[in-house]
């Protein structure tokens, strides 16, 4: 499976003391009232859907009254949560980008979920086992669970089927490794009188997209972008990161199959819908939006990986499970299948266990 990186929205239990105090006072007479903050990271009327879910929860649990509070973008949600904590009105739970969780843990503003999980009769381990292993590092900090994986998004390769056919590529076999990817990019780029009519590939670089995609590509290059166990250590000059940058440099500057400069997500989807780019790397969170608006035939695939590099990595060859992973054919994803997420999580290889940075840190 692919680099699953953060970009997940995680529920973090915040400042439970305040919420608990409220609970014990209010329990006797009226239901416990708590706030849930949530951003709208994906397109669509998700805000309405969230409200429906919360209403259902409230009718099914008469002793708890949850108010779902829409809190804007990822950053606005972070801002609002900090301000509410400082003002003494912390929400009981927040859905926010996993990027921010460590900050709350360091500031001791978040409480771990572990006591709640044990209260529900599970151990933290059995609880985390309910999730794909690749999603777990986002949630666990210092062996405690500070987040529950929710709405995790991963980078996907979206590609235009007609453009593939036109360029003589097989849409049933999207590029599975970096060499194929570069070749496909070259074949798919169309220039006319010095002007590019169709780009081979586009990906967004605004907000944290560039870091997110570089992080994913670094994982598919056999490395890690940052230390999962010790926040703050970023492997900018590790060979796996430099390899990723070399790939981007090749595609943008040398071969010119990716437009130069910083594109935002809107520009990428607009270009993809209009056939102005044959491939794009974008979040799984965009899949519904693409499905609703893309009129040309398209498919999605995993991000191509750099197989050659992976084989040469001594650390991983020792692991028999991993050899299997390298040998596994890259499968084409059916967009419809992906939206109704298959329940069989065996499909997903435990990437982080294979390629994790050496243990240590905290």
């Amino acid at each position, binding site marked *: 499976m692919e680099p699953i990186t953060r970009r997940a929205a995680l529920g973090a239990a915040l400042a439970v003391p305040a919420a608990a105090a409220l609970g014990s006072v209010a329990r006797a007479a009226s239901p416990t009232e708590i706030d849930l903050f949530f951003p709208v990271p994906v397109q669509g*009327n998700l805000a*309405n859907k969230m409200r429906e879910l919360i209403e259902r929860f409230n009718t099914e649990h008469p002793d708890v009254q949850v*108010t779902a509070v829409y809190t804007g973008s990822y950053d*606005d949600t972070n801002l609002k949560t900090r301000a509410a904590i400082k*003002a003494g*009105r912390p929400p009981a739970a927040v859905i926010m980008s996993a990027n921010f969780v460590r900050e709350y843990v360091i500031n001791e503003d978040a409480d771990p979920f572990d006591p709640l999980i044990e209260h529900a009769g599970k151990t933290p381990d059995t609880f985390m086992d309910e999730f794909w292993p690749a999603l777990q590092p986002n949630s666990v900090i210092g062996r405690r669970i500070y987040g529950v994986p929710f709405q995790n998004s991963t980078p996907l390769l979206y590609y235009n089927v007609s453009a593939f056919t036109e360029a003589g590529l097989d849409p049933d076999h999207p590029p599975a490794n970096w060499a194929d990817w570069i070749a496909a990019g070259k074949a798919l780029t169309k220039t006319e009188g010095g002007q590019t009519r169709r780009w081979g590939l586009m990906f967004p670089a605004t907000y944290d997209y560039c870091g997110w995609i570089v992080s994913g590509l670094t994982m598919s290059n056999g490395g890690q972008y940052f230390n999962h166990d010790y926040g703050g250590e970023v492997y900018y000059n590790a060979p796996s990161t430099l390899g990723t940058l070399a790939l981007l440099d090749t595609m943008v500057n040398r071969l010119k199959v990716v437009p130069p400069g910083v594109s935002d997500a809107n520009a990428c*989807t*607009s270009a993809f819908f209009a056939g102005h780019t044959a491939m794009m790397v974008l979040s799984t969170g*965009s899949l519904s939006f693409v499905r609703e608006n893309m009129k040309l035939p398209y498919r999605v695939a995993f991000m191509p990986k750099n197989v050659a590099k992976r084989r040469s990595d001594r650390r991983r060859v020792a692991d028999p499970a991993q050899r299997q992973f390298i040998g596994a054919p890259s499968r084409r994803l059916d967009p419809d299948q992906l939206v109704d997420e298959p329940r069989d999580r065996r499909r997903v290889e435990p990437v982080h266990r294979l390629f994790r940075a050496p243990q240590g840190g905290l």
Partner: protein
Amino acid sequence: MSRTQKWRLLGLLAASAVAVIWVVPFAWMAVAALRPGIPADTASLTPAGPFGLRNFHDAWQSGSFPLWYLNTVVVCSGILAVQLVTITAAGYAFARLTFPGREVLFALFLLQLLLVPPLLIVPNLATLVSLHLYDKLLGIMAPYFASAFGTFLMRQTFRTIPRDYEEAAMLEGATVPALIRHVLVPLARPGLAAFAIVSVTAHWNEFLWPLMAVSSPSSQVLTVGLASFASGAEAGSAWGVVAAGTFLVAGPLLLLFLLFQRRFVASFLFSGIK
């Protein structure tokens, strides 16, 4: 063509250029709002079509606009009503009363203008919580009840009014409140109108503070509501729906401006705000 005529023409051309630049985003918003789906030539100002009102329907369905309108109107008019009283009183004090430390106090008052509003989010929220105004519409309004800008504007406006009027009224036996109400306020009306426009526009468009101060969906204002379906971070925007939603939010202000255009321009010319 005489020299003055030439300059006039040049001025007209420059003004037209600025007007065109200013109007392009509005024109595009209007065009985009009327085009359903995501057309391939989405950036075009003169597309072939098809056109329709579907986007407005979708935007309207995406949230509770009637409630958001109501809350926004309550917030804007509530702020303005209190501000008009406080800035008139404070402006009068700084313009006409003599008391020790007046200039220093006025300078301190103006210092407020130098503070970036986000700096005060946390202290203001803490105050709201202790006053039990957190998550209430009144909480959105409270920090704006006193306006440094408004006080400054009214002070300047009052100072342009000759003292003769007040002296005449005082000879007739008018008290200070009566003086303010019957002499100064009517004469300062263009200044108050200019301030009202600035205040209403600012609070109508404000996003961050209402987002911070209010949590319940029942106290949501327009800007926060619009963002709830317009700012999907991980997908392309449905431009048509966003444009239609923006129209719904900005519409009332645009309409007011068109209706009272002459008066607005006159007020601004009078008060010197540009």
